[in-house]
């Protein structure tokens, strides 16, 4: 395996191709345009298809049609574009289709900015569309992980027949870092795609739909979905524990690029003999709530600090996980401002000195 220096967006694009996803539908939007530009160059070489759609609304629905055929298909976009796909995502969740979406988040709300942000946490993990459904959400923190999780996303989507999202901030998309692609990529087997609409020759017709006027039928579908989400909670929770040990005085919970910044802080604090550990959720849904709680209740932990590039979104899930067993603190910057290691370190020092404000974030 060779390490190649690549831009995040291009690494993600290549990873998708390596996972067999050679059907790509998208609409341009900063900061992820390099995905499409890479696909436009690469796909003809591998016999794939790239349709540049007329809008993200159309993208969501082209995915719907394409994924119904049983092929691996995906899109990439950024925050406002993802908002426009919410109806289609809700439909695909209801119809149980294994679509993969890449969201390279930028600052919002509205047109916002184009700099990195993590303000789409709620939208992706709680379901920005209508109805009872969930999206499986993976959050990479390095480009290598962006590659690995993109490939995994296709696998998990197929395994659960559920929309799956790779949620990364603009920095992941824009920066370059060396990455390696697995040479002989083999996956665990996934369930046969016997639900695909491939023409009914020799079998009964297949209908892929989400309508059920009979509420008994609709509820049954929702229960099937709920069952899947429970399985995901049981089997798919992923997280990284960084320098977690019994001496930790603070447990930091942070994801994506933000977690890397926290790692730098933790390294620096270690030099100063202040022990802080990091639990980095890799799956945002399902959320590693039990794992966070297990760390939080350790005797030495004084408080749990959530750091986000948002006004405070994941922190609600952290509070939900910690159940008031320890104080939950929050530090966040928003709108494209990336908290620096210095700021985060300062805030940790304030927590240790008990100087943080009583009310954190907008949840206060």
């Amino acid at each position, binding site marked *: 395996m060779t390490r190649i220096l690549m831009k995040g967006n291009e690494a993600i694009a290549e990873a998708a191709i390596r996972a067999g996803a050679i059907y790509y539908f998208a609409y341009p939007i900063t900061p992820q345009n390099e995905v499409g530009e890479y696909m436009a160059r690469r796909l003809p070489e591998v016999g794939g298809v790239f349709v540049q759609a007329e809008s993200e609304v159309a993208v969501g629905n082209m995915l719907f049609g394409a994924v119904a055929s049983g092929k691996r298909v995906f899109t990439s976009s950024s925050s406002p574009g993802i908002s426009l796909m919410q109806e289609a995502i809700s439909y695909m969740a209801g119809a149980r289709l294994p679509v993969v979406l890449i969201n390279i988040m930028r600052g919002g709300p509205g047109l916002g900015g*184009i700099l990195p942000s993590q303000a789409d946490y709620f939208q992706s993990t709680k379901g920005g569309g209508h109805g009872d459904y969930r999206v499986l959400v993976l959050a990479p923190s390095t480009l290598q992980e962006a590659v690995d999780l993109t490939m995994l996303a296709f696998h998990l989507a197929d395994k659960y027949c559920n929309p799956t999202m790779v949620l990364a901030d603009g*920095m992941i998309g824009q920066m370059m870092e060396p990455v390696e692609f697995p040479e002989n990529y083999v996956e665990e087997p996934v369930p046969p795609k016997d639900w695909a609409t491939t023409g009914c020759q020799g079998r009964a017709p297949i209908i892929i739909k989400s309508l059920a006027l009979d509420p008994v039928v609709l509820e049954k579908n929702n229960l099937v979905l709920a069952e899947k989400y429970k399985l995901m909670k049981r089997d798919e929770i992923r997280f990284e524990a960084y320098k977690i040990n019994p001496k930790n005085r603070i447990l930091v919970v942070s994801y994506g690029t933000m977690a890397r910044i926290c790692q730098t802080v933790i390294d620096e604090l270690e030099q100063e003999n202040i022990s802080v550990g990091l639990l980095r959720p890799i799956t945002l849904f399902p959320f590693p709530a039990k794992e966070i709680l297990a760390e939080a209740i350790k005797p030495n932990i004084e408080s749990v600090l959530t750091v986000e590039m948002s006004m405070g979104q994941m922190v609600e899930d952290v509070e939900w996980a910690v159940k008031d067993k320890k104080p939950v603190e929050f530090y966040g910057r928003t709108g494209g401002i990336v908290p620096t290691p210095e700021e985060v370190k300062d805030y940790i020092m304030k927590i240790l000195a008990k100087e943080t404000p009583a009310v954190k974030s907008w949840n206060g």
Partner: protein
Amino acid sequence: MTGQYEVTFAGFGGQGVMVAGQLLAYSGIEEGKNAVWIPSYGPEMRGGTAYCTVVISDKRIGSPIINSPRAVCIFNPPSYEKFVPRVKTGGLAIVNSSLITLTTERTDINEIRIPANDLAIEAGNVKATNVAMLGAFIGASGVVGYDTVKRILEAKMGKKKSVLDINMRVLEQGFQFAGEAMRKGSRV
């Protein structure tokens, strides 16, 4: 080089600052190190100042966000004002003196002024300005080896011989220029 080194390249859009940073990052990887390249991104930045930062390290790179780099390579006047104040104490500033007459009051950094535009124009292509600056940077910092950068240049620009030749020439000139300046200048 050991530990972690950060350098910011800054200039007008079109001066090739992004490519200079990428060439450095490629060179870092080539030498088996870790490297991160982070741009100021978005075409909306057009007309303003463009910049990128490269982090090179032996170890896992944590924060890719660098507020105070160890070095800056400054291509134009606005960037001079914006970035020179940010350099870490004891750090390095490579300054394109063809366009920049501004000076700094900082005495805790090492400033190398090189007429990069002029060197490039002389060599036959103003677009080679960035490689002249890159040459100066590695000459002064030694973050990556001169030969490594040459290999990368060949790999990335090898298609057009004439272009490559010009770039090789200014790379060397920049490298020499800064090396001498460093030998002469007193490091802080």
